[in-house]
């Protein structure tokens, strides 16, 4: 790379992804509302997915689709970005969706049972 500044700016993508994750963690551990916790869990997932996709990125790479145009012009497979992280993220997103759905359902149940969304008041099970 020509300049260190740009070099570090490259990593801003990682930094952002990780920061999103950390924000999610923070929300999970500090926010009192169950809904916010669930949202925070989603935020963690988002950050993570971002991070994973970023790993598969190559500078100047194309989408891993052998469209007619690609086959005509490039033919160079190494120009494609890594498709595997994308495939994995697809799976991870779906799984994250499933978990979020379950969590939301549980929140509904908890609200039905306790009449509150404050996690500090939902501590019947302890010790």
């Amino acid at each position, binding site marked *: 790379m020509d300049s260190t500044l740009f070099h570090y700016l*490259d*990593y801003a*993508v*990682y*930094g952002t992804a*990780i*920061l999103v*994750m*950390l924000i999610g*963690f*923070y929300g999970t*551990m*500090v926010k009192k509302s169950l809904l916010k916790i669930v949202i925070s869990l989603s935020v963690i997932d988002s950050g993570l997915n971002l*991070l994973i996709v*970023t*790993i598969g*990125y*190559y*500078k100047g790479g194309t*989408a*891993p*689709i*052998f*469209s*007619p145009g690609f*086959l005509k012009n490039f033919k160079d*497979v*190494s120009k*494609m970005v*890594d*498709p*595997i992280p*994308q*495939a994995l993220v*697809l*799976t991870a*997103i*779906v*799984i994250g*969706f*499933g*978990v979020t*759905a*379950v969590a*939301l*359902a*549980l929140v*509904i*149940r908890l*609200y*039905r049972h306790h*009449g509150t969304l404050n996690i500090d008041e939902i501590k019947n099970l302890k010790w």
Partner: protein
Amino acid sequence: MKKVLVILLLAVLGYYTAATFFDIGFGQPHFIKGLEPVKDIYLAQTVKTLKVSNAVTSIVVNFRGFDTLGEVTVLFLAVTVLGSVLYKKRHEVGERSVLFSASSIVTSGSKLLFPAIILLGAYVFIHGHLSPGGGFQGGVIIATGFLLMLLSYENYSVSHTALSVVESLAGITFAGVGLLGFLHGGTFLQNFLPTGVLNNLFSGGIIPIIYIAVGFKVGAELTGVIYTVLHEKGQSNG
């Protein structure tokens, strides 16, 4: 106090995670030299053997099709769990609670858009092996169509039985196709259909079939999720 502690902890965690990923490097080949990464094989085989142009699709449905089967199962399970968690006896199921009804612009607009959305979804998952998109994406688009309808019409209802039949059939298709491959070629999910020509709609062997099934399944399941949650009547404090 707790916040400070959490922030400190997260700072350390963030530092180590960041350090790790900076080590890995961004935007350039990061695999250890001399190794043959699987992705090269995948990319090569996608064109050569499977005749599928979307490499992601080939990975999701064929190379790592087993993952996708699991993924579909996860969704199926999520719906099941949702139903189980929010299960109520018949007479306890209430009407949807609606704060205010949608305006006529919304209702008629939705009616207008709904077929288009469904069509788009179907397109996306049918062409999953050729262009960006696929079963999951298409399924989600279809589900948004239903969401739109559910939001705009207070008494819009989707047949529960129909949803469950669709998702079951789609799932059976996936697993059944896999087992057919097993019977045909000895390995699960093995391709047993002619692969056709690259970039044709009818190419890629069983991949489109599976992706279409996935599309139906995802659509049905997401709709089911939305429907179930929407019919959760707000219970005012106990």
